[in-house]
């Protein structure tokens, strides 16, 4: 940032230098009247643009000075004002040595809806839409800094889809930016349709079950990642914006956590990790206990369990797999159908099939509870992609529990841990900050510490500027 006491006279060259590497900046020249226009195309309304610019272009050069005296054109006296103005959706007009600003702010956007996949209760409800420029404007309108740099790339040999890589100069680690750009340039494929598809081309382990870059449809999430020193990518035609590098634990955070009081935020975070444990192990434990470890059941529950199991003709593992499969079918059916029918399917499936299955003696009612609660727990995980991965992993654990009991579950978890440890996201450990351990980061991973306590940017982004808050308490 320039020192506020030190005023620099506005000049075209200085402005352009400041926005170096911002591909979305428009610079138009009218040599015959000696006028330069500098503005962000996606932040202004083109009608307004023409309303202000047409008189200028139609005038002769000596008339310009008089036209510019009109009140809508404000004379800017220092460079900072100009830069700020541009970021706020003004058009900067450079004429000879004078610089004028004219307000034409109206970001281009089709109607912006609330996100369907990542909903929050409090906080902003807007979400990204398909056109990349509109998404870019959503971000630009919230980060008014010339340090926000944009790199434009093209992916898809045929589709030539635009891809914008955004990072904040001075916060993001340039090695990661370079690495990411390199990887994207290496993609040779006909077309890429969505951000979630793109990340599969560029992540470190395409065969892993876990998503290695997090995606989001929410501008506030994207911005929080940017200021955390991470890199985000906007693919034209996709509302999913991806972040790199990401860690496993990032998928369990929701912007809601920050909009609530920190104690509530912490409680919700912990709830989510509890949900992770429940969704992974609940059904598996049921299978393991009913198949191998009967002695773990407290006496009060014993008869209930035996009673409900005694009518079921299958071994617990088949019973559990059957019910889990049904739940997955219901979920998939609900997702493919229009919302209203989807709800009906949910009710019909949940109540009718569940009830009937118990009455027909196909499953025990305790299992229904286990399956249902682990399914609900899986939906607590904010990221849809991660929640889908976890649900699939759960099947593996159930099979292991059915063959080896508790030992099987332990082996399954050991395998997951081993797998997770091997993963990297943009060459950084996927399970930061647990290993390598950065205890400072734990304040924003397992709990949501009070805002004043989170002073540093996360270690994973390896940022050159670690401190995000200097204010003392």
């Amino acid at each position, binding site marked *: 940032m320039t020192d506020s006491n030190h005023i620099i006279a506005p000049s075209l060259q200085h402005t352009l230098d400041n926005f170096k590497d911002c591909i979305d900046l428009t610079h138009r020249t009218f040599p015959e009247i000696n006028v330069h226009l500098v503005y962000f195309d996606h932040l202004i309304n083109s009608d307004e643009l023409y309303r202000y610019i047409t008189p200028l272009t139609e005038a002769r050069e000596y008339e310009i000075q008089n036209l510019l005296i009109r009140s809508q054109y404000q004379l800017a006296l220092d460079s900072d004002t100009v830069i700020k103005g541009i970021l706020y959706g003004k058009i900067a007009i450079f004429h000879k040595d004078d610089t004028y600003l004219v307000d034409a702010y109206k970001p281009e956007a089709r109607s912006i809806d609330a996100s369907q996949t990542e909903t929050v209760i409090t906080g902003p409800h807007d979400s990204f839409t398909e056109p990349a420029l509109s998404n870019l404007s959503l971000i630009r309108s919230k980060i008014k800094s010339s340090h926000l740099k944009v790199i434009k790339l093209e992916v898809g040999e045929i589709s030539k889809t635009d891809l914008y890589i955004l990072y904040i100069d001075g916060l993001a680690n340039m090695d990661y930016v370079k690495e990411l750009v390199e990887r994207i340039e290496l993609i040779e494929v006909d077309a890429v349709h969505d951000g979630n598809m793109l990340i599969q081309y560029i992540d470190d382990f395409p065969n892993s079950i876990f998503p290695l870059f997090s995606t989001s449809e929410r501008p506030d999430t994207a911005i929080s990642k940017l200021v955390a020193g991470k890199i985000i990518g906007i693919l034209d035609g996709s509302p999913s914006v991806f972040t790199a590098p990401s860690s496993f634990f990032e998928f369990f955070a929701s912007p809601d956590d920050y909009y609530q009081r920190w104690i509530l935020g912490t409680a919700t975070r912990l709830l989510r990790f509890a949900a992770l444990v429940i969704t992974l192990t609940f059904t598996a434990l049921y299978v393991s206990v009913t*198949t191998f470890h*009967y*002695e773990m059941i407290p006496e009060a529950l*014993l008869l209930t369990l*035996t009673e409900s199991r005694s009518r079921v003709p299958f071994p617990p593992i088949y019973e559990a797999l059957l019910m889990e499969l049904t739940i997955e079918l219901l979920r998939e059916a609900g997702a493919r159908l229009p919302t209203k029918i989807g709800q009906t399917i949910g009710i019909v499936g949940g109540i009718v099939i569940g009830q009937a299955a118990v009455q027909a003696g196909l499953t025990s009612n305790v299992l229904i509870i286990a399956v249902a609660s682990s399914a609900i727990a899986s939906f607590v995980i904010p990221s849809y992609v991660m929640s889908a991965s976890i649900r699939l992993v759960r099947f593996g654990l159930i099979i292991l529990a059915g063959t080896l009991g508790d030992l099987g579950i332990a082996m399954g978890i050991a395998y997951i841990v081993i797998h997770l440890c091997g993963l990297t996201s943009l060459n950084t450990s996927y399970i930061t900050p647990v290993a390598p351990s950065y205890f400072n980061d734990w304040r924003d991973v397992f709990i949501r510490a009070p805002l004043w306590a989170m002073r540093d940017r996360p270690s994973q982004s390896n940022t050159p500027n670690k401190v995000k808050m200097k204010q003392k308490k």
Partner: protein
Amino acid sequence: MMLLVMLLLIGCGDQRVLEKLGFTQTTSYDLDPNTEESSDDEKQGQQKLLISVTIPRTRTENSRELITATAYTSKEAKIKLSSQTELTIVSGQLRNTLFGLSLAKQGIWEHIDTLVRDSSISPRVKVTIVNGSAHELLSKDYSQHNRTGKYLDRMLEKEAISQTVPEITLYRFTRDFLDDGIDAVAPIIKQLDEHVSIDGIALFQGDRYVTKVEPDDTLIFAFLRGRFKNGEMSVDMSEVGRINEHIMFSSMISKRKIKIKTTSEGQHYHADISINVRGSVLEYTGKLSLDNVEHQKQIEKLIAEYIKLKTEEMVAMMQKNNVDSIGLGKYVRNKLSYEEWKNLDWRRIYPNIEVTCNVNVRIKDFGKFVNIEQ
């Protein structure tokens, strides 16, 4: 892929699927009355055992299944028991073991040992002695109560909370049995017509039943055994010189301390048991007034005197029977060096040591109602 196939192979043989199991809830051990006098078995030096187990069921009419077998060892019995039911008998849910008195008199360690060895049996399984035949007690259905096993289990747990009997689990029994400074105890129950009642506390010497504490005195035993909370006691004041006066002492919190003094001759020990009791008095019939401060002090003294009398009486009884159920030995042991303790024949010394009990009673409150004196 290969691993998957292997996975499916593993464990199939060792599955213990819930509904195919018969969980023994309570096991009873008796000497078989039919063979008790038979000379054949005497020659083998072993008597036949009568072992019964209850298995809670939901679908049978009695809501439980009782099977009985006679055998020389409990494991042999398990095989015989298993052949009588369609379920696989497992003992991982065992909650209670009942030993008939006649067996308890012969020693029960052999059976406890089997139970402790079995990795599926919880160390929390209760050990209970039955005054009479354990089998009969267990086989009877008490129409006014739950299924018998659960009924006994719940009753013992409840009584343990109110300090009438100690809660004796396999772990505690084994701990005390294998400790050379204390003798094991166990609750003892007996069968009445339509229910079962606590019949005191069985005192063991080694693993053999020797004598018992009468049900009325169980709380006195609790004072001696250690600290406890939440007891209730009726004090008969006639024992301390006030005829026809009774007092209910409740919500007691008691702490016990033992100090051992050695007298100059070395082989002579003196045990000081100090008992500190706090509690409240809500009921009193007698001439003193509950609301007079001086009388209150007097009541405290009377109760203390009563407890002292009773505890000393009980220690004398235990010394007479040569059972160190309150663990004085442990405290003596800590006073001595290793060689001294090993050379000491504790069993021989114990009956002759001097024991004094010092009781301190504090009454926290006398209820929330006051009688104004006229």
